[in-house]
């Protein structure tokens, strides 16, 4: 049975329903528009906490020297730089993103840091990753799955290129578990388009960000999506009472 969507099917773009073929272009536009100021905006919106969350995610990757890791939707290379230290010179990090503008920023950062030795860069579509089966020890997609048109296809593709026993990490905004915090967060996130206008000159992109967070599946739904895609031992960790969640899943070993 195929889940492949038809040409006339629609999907979410924030609160809007758009034809599937259009979403990719519009998300591309969003990220082209914010690429240069993306990291500054992350600091502003998260009040710096995104750095701590990323550090914790890297900790959860349990990477070892010599391993191969795919930083999917890695954009400006924040994770790739961290992963590069973990896997060392004998390992390899592939910084992958569908958006060339984001990758360009990431590539420049990596060159500026002098960490080109073990980081490769690839422009890829997460729904059909151009890597052989069983390639990576770990795949991390951070704040990226939300923007993918066909999330199930992306998860299946990730599962395919992961080595048996390898781990996939999905870091995403999620549903706050505390009502009071959820309301405060809702109010706070309404300010993001304003901040976006001031810093990047683009309020619409950050309006999309807020809307796409609301439309993203909650913790349990994403967990089930990962299981459906073929991951096992799936779990999630709520960070900051569920404002973000880190989902972990493993590719089954052949004998299991």
């Amino acid at each position: 049975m195929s889940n492949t969507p038809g040409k006339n099917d629609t999907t979410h773009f924030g609160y809007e329903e758009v034809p599937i073929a259009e979403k990719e272009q519009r998300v591309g536009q969003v990220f082209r528009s914010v690429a240069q100021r993306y990291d500054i905006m992350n600091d502003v919106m998260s009040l710096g906490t995104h750095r701590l969350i990323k550090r914790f995610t890297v900790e959860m990757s349990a990477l070892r020297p010599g391993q191969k890791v795919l930083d999917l939707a890695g954009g400006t290379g924040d994770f790739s730089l961290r992963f590069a230290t973990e896997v060392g010179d004998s390992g390899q990090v592939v910084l992958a993103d569908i958006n060339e503008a984001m990758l360009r920023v990431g590539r420049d950062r990596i060159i500026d840091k002098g960490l080109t030795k073990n980081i490769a860069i690839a422009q890829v579509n997460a729904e059909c990753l151009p890597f052989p089966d069983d390639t990576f020890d770990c795949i991390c997609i951070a704040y990226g799955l939300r923007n993918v048109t066909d999330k199930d296809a992306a998860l299946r593709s990730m599962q395919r290129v992961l080595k048996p026993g390898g781990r996939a990490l999905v870091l995403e905004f999620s549903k706050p578990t505390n009502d009071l915090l959820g309301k405060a967060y809702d109010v706070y996130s309404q300010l993001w388009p304003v901040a976006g206008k001031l810093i990047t000159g683009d309020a619409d992109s950050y309006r999309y960000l807020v809307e796409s967070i609301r439309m993203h599946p909650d913790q349990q739904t994403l967990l089930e999506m990962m299981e459906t895609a073929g991951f096992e031992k799936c779990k999630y960790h709520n960070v900051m009472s569920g404002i973000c969640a880190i989902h972990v899943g493993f590719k089954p070993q052949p004998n299991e």
Partner: protein
Amino acid sequence: MNQFLGSLLLIPAEQMLNHLLANDDYLAARLRRFSGKSICLHSRKPTSRITLHVLEGRVRLSSLDADQLDLLPDASITGDAGALLGLLTDSGSKPLANTAIEITGDALLVQDLFTTVRGLDLDWLDYLSPFLGEILTHELGQASVQARQWSAQARENLGRNVDAYLKEELQLLPDRERMRHFSNQLDHLRLRLDRLRARTELLQSRLDKSLKNQHLSS
């Protein structure tokens, strides 16, 4: 404790340790033989967990379980937070022989690692100066010495005042000389009792013997 918060709390400690290792070849060389080893520290009060993983040239501290980190720990140490802290701060070789601490796995590795850590002569101010600057570090050093002196003095004064209050004012506790006298009297009494018991036993045995003789002769 929440693993994310635990992880945040460990960041300064991990950064400090890795800074030490990056700037101290001697320390790095001593820790190199532990490369690849991991130790889990479980604190009962308060409940928390730290996984220490020694890597090539650096260490990783994590609040995640060893299995979440794909590690098979070489050793685990369980105990109260105070006792675990004592492992790092106590000098000498006694702290591992502590009933408040339970060690499973490679106890020799634990012994070896803590002996190495305790044997290091670290000048923390030296290591702090790149972060805080020379002036602030110097001020911090002075403040730390003064705080230690004040704390020692305050502890001594408090002890002396409480002692005087309990003994002189409230007369709740006897003074040292009286205690010694009382203790001597107790010792003396115990010795006399021992002698009395020995004498009673001797008399009893004599009595038993004479009764036995009487019985035989009749």
